[in-house]
């Protein structure tokens, strides 16, 4: 029999009598293993903190979203949003499931090409595509989504010079009834810029208009915004067909679907607040049936989802460094993972579970990271069991945007491992070491003397 775990005593306010507004006392369910692999074992081998990505969960998410759309519209093509998480192993799982690549910079474009994705299967978005990248994209028949007139002029010029036809679509922004309006990317629908851009492309023989694109926003909580967006694109497509006889290959509805991470401003849990994926899919696909296309011509629906496919496949394992009590009596827990690696804690109230069995007694606490910075706060308020130094915590839903937006600050970025479908564990990004960081730097000769 193992020795029972010691927990320091806590004082909890007792509510008795009638049912009260606080509901049941919160219970935190420990997360002791990820896809069958013990958290303890993972950190013993790969250290702490540690990002863990579940291959099984990614594939399940992909299949689930694909099924939901595929049962509502016949032609679906998923494209993996690189910026969400462009670790090679992660991209490979998506490509393996059938997703194309959606990139927003020359850097990401090159990454996709290095992974063996051909130009035709890359969607090139974003306001900054430098000349070399555009030349390469035109050459390799990538699907270029034009963001502004200056880019359009540049592509016209380049394509003419190269004697090639560029495969293009335009990004359209529109009022879909949400605040703030996302009108900084692409051509506006209401002020006529979109139709003007389309007209210019349609009459240019060096450009082939193959699609329309919109991305109405991120973490969209309203399905109706999508319905409006899709309707407006469908309207443009109908216009193109009737005016120019142009039949599009695809309509790209972008991404923006939320994951079940609760935003900082939200009172209710995301699960209770958000529409279901089916409702989003209904809203996105329904306007497509208003197209004046014949059944053979129906365009493919492209989706650029990132967050919703990867967020819950990522976990961050951290360790308690210390407990302390704040001036107002509130408990604070210091862990070894800070905002430098958990960038999303700036906008999410991440769900955090202990990684070991605990008693039912809980206490309100703040969780701080290890950085010597006041902003390094992971959760301001969270109800957790009492924890000791060395206890482990698992941060949930961290698959999106963390391993792309993290920064190297006063410590080194940790290992990232993937738990494979068969239960084996693979290191997919090695932790940095000092030599690697310093190898990028150089010291001017006269400063190489050390402390005098």
């Amino acid at each position: 029999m193992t020795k029972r775990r010691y927990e320091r005593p806590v004082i909890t306010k007792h509510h008795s009598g009638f049912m009260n507004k606080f509901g049941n006392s919160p219970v935190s369910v420990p997360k002791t293993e990820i896809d069958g692999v013990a958290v303890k074992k993972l950190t013993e081998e790969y250290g702490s903190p540690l990002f863990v990505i579940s291959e099984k969960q990614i594939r399940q998410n992909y299949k689930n979203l694909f099924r939901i759309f595929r049962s509502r519209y016949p032609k679906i093509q998923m494209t993996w949003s690189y910026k969400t998480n462009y670790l090679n192993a992660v991209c490979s799982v998506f490509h393996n499931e059938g997703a194309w690549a959606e990139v927003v910079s020359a850097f990401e474009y090159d990454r996709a090409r290095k992974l063996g994705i051909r130009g035709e299967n890359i969607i090139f978005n974003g306001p900054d595509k430098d000349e070399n990248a555009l030349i390469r994209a035109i050459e390799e028949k990538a699907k270029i989504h034009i963001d502004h007139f200056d880019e359009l002029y540049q592509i016209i010029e380049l394509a003419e010079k190269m004697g090639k036809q560029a495969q293009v679509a335009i990004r359209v922004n529109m009022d879909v009834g949400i605040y703030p309006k996302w009108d900084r990317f692409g051509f506006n629908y209401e002020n006529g810029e979109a139709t003007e851009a389309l007209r210019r492309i349609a009459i240019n023989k060096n450009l082939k208009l193959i699609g329309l694109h919109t991305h109405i926003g991120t973490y969209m909580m309203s399905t109706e915004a999508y319905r409006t967006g899709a309707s407006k694109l469908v309207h443009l497509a109908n216009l193109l067909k009737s005016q120019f006889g142009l039949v599009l290959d695809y309509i790209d509805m972008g991404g923006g679907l939320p994951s079940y991470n609760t935003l900082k401003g939200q009172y209710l849990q995301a699960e209770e607040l958000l529409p279901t994926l089916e409702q989003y899919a209904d809203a996105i696909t329904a306007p497509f049936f208003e197209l004046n296309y014949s059944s053979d011509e129906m365009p493919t629906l492209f989706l650029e989802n990132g967050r919703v496919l990867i967020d819950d496949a990522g976990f961050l394992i951290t360790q308690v460094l210390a407990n302390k009590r704040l001036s107002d009596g509130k408990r604070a827990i210091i862990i070894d993972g800070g905002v430098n690696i958990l960038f999303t804690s700036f906008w999410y109230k991440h769900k955090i579970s202990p990684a070991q069995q605990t008693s039912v007694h809980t206490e309100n606490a703040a969780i701080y990271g290890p950085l010597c910075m006041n902003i390094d706060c992971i959760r301001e308020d969270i109800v957790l069991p009492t924890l000791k130094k060395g206890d482990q915590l698992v941060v949930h839903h961290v698959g999106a945007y963390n391993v792309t937006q993290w920064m190297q600050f006063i410590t080194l970025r940790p290992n990232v491992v993937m738990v494979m479908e068969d239960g084996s564990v693979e290191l997919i990004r090695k932790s940095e070491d000092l030599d690697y960081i310093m190898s990028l730097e150089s010291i001017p000769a006269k400063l190489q003397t050390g402390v005098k």
Partner: protein
Amino acid sequence: MKLLFESIVFSYSQIFFSNRKWLGIILFAGTMLNPVIGAAGLIGVALSNLFALYLKFDKEKVRSGFYGFNGLLTGAAFAFYFELTPFLVLVGFLFVFISFFLAAALENYLAAAFNLPGLSLPFVFTLYIFLIFSTNFEQIAYLYKEGFAIGFEQYLPDSISLLFRSISVIYLQPGVLPGIIFFIGILFFSRVMAVNIVIGYTLNYLLITYAFSSYSPELMLLSSFNAILTAIALGGSLIIVSRKSFLLVAIASVMVAIFTGFFYKLLMPYFLPVLVLPFNSIVLATLYSLKFRQEQSDLVLLYFPPGSPEENLYYHTNRVSRFEKFKQIFPELPFYGEWFISQGFFGGYTHKDDWSYAWDFIIKNESGKEFEDEGNYKADYYCYDTPVVSALEGDVVRVIDNITDNKIGENNLKYNWGNSVVLNHGHGLYSSMSHLKSGSIKVAEGDHIKRGQVIANCGNSGRSPYPHLHFQFQLTDKLGDKTYKFPFSSYMQKDGEKFILKSFEFPPENVTVANIELHKTLKKALNFRLGDEFEFECNLGEISFREKWEVKVDIMNNLFIESDSNCRAYIYMTDKIFYISSYIGSRSSALYFFYLLAIRVPLGYHEKLEWHDPIPARHATSSFIRYLSEPFLFLGEQIRSEIRLYFEERINSDDDFVIDGELSTRGKMLFSGFSEKGNGKMVISNEGEIKSLEFELGKKYFNCNLIIDEEKSE
């Protein structure tokens, strides 16, 4: 000239229901063993065919020997029965014309009115007319040359000698030698026919020798050769060979002995010979009576231009296995994506009695669950609120859209069918979709809708404890009418990780199915239009050659590809599937390998999609074993071939479409040790052209590449 030559040769082979030139030549050579009779026969054929061509009868029919073989028999009969005098030769010419007109009238009448072959009736009537007419003249000497002997009889036992003499008599030849030559020719042409001849003859022989022993030698000969002809006709040439046809031959050859005796006595007072009357009457009566059966699934009468009995069987079994359920309209599954059939035909819940032929569809996720969480709410179900589409083009004839959806687990037995739409697809076919979501119906009565158009959303109304789509075909516009068994024209059925392409089948319970998504490129590649031409650079083993294809159409409006080597592949396309329905020609042309690899092609690409099609054994293997197996064909096909085709995975959107094929041939029963394999691939370019074909079969390696005419393509 070529046409005349072919028509003559085919007239000879036509008597054995054959379409082989070489057999015609052997048979002709056999008749020339007795030069007078042979020449008379040749004149008869040539005159008939010339006459037919001069009068502008259908050239193809003349070529096939349809009008010639009665002339052949009539000509030969004159030389066989009579001393040839100048007067008789003159009259003989005239009677060839009579036989021709009788043939043209009778053969065509029987074909048009009863869909029966005229056989040799015109010949019989011509000769009777002459015999009765000839009694006006005393100088015509009736000569029966049974005594003629050209060697060999003495070396053979009576029973064997009679067999070959009987075969000789078919072409009005005396003696055994022509019979032996004819028989050898037949053996090369068809093992089945040879077996039938021996069986028919033997049974007849046993009967007339031991039971009807008072039959004269003349009667025995008559009975024997009629038995042989009857056995040929019923044992594989006009009826597809099978166990039952074998039994039919046995019975018929006994009947021949009886009818020969009957006709002999009947015609004796008029001094008329029996000739082929027993054969004609028995075969015609049998064929005609068989047409009135309720089910024609066995003892199948020939419904296509005859080949050898082997070819007939191969063609028929291939056709049955590939096209038995084929329909001229092409319904597809009424939804998008992959759905699971929770209740199929004769299902355990409600698909019973009059409502047996219906499907209940639901959606399951990758781990086999049909709902999220506990499934306590309608919206937890993956299929709930997904679009339901029209299976076929049609008119909306009935819409019910005011029944509230049930809570999970509840049934609305008052309105069993719930919210429903009934569509009229024309041709007397209706489809009905039920348990739709309340308020989701997007069409109104009277609307005309296209296939694939969204009708409503899947719901949970009526007798539906959990959300599902009930789909059925029916024959009226009545809601909840009894179901009608009608197949879906194309769909994919999940089998483990793979998808199997199905066409005109009834998806069974507990499988996952999905529609094929049309791919423009594949459709472009296989959309052959009249007049299209292609040329290929080919290599077969060491030999290099060029082969041209042209798309043509025949008189029945069937589209086919013809190669310049005279091979033909008949093609057909439904909305989603390209078929090669049959192939005629050599096994060394590019078209042959195209036939193997494109016997059925879905016009949409899907990863891990594969399909299986039977190939007639004679198209799949040249092995000697096949010939050995053919005498046993009445037991069913002894050697079967199947090709398994599948798409190679396409990684990029501009990759070529590669279809791999694995041909396997396997023997059954006696020949179970035999097996052969071959494999090949067809590449369809991203531009929608059949770029190349490749096949390795036995020791042969074939490949060919499309020659792209640069000027034309620009």
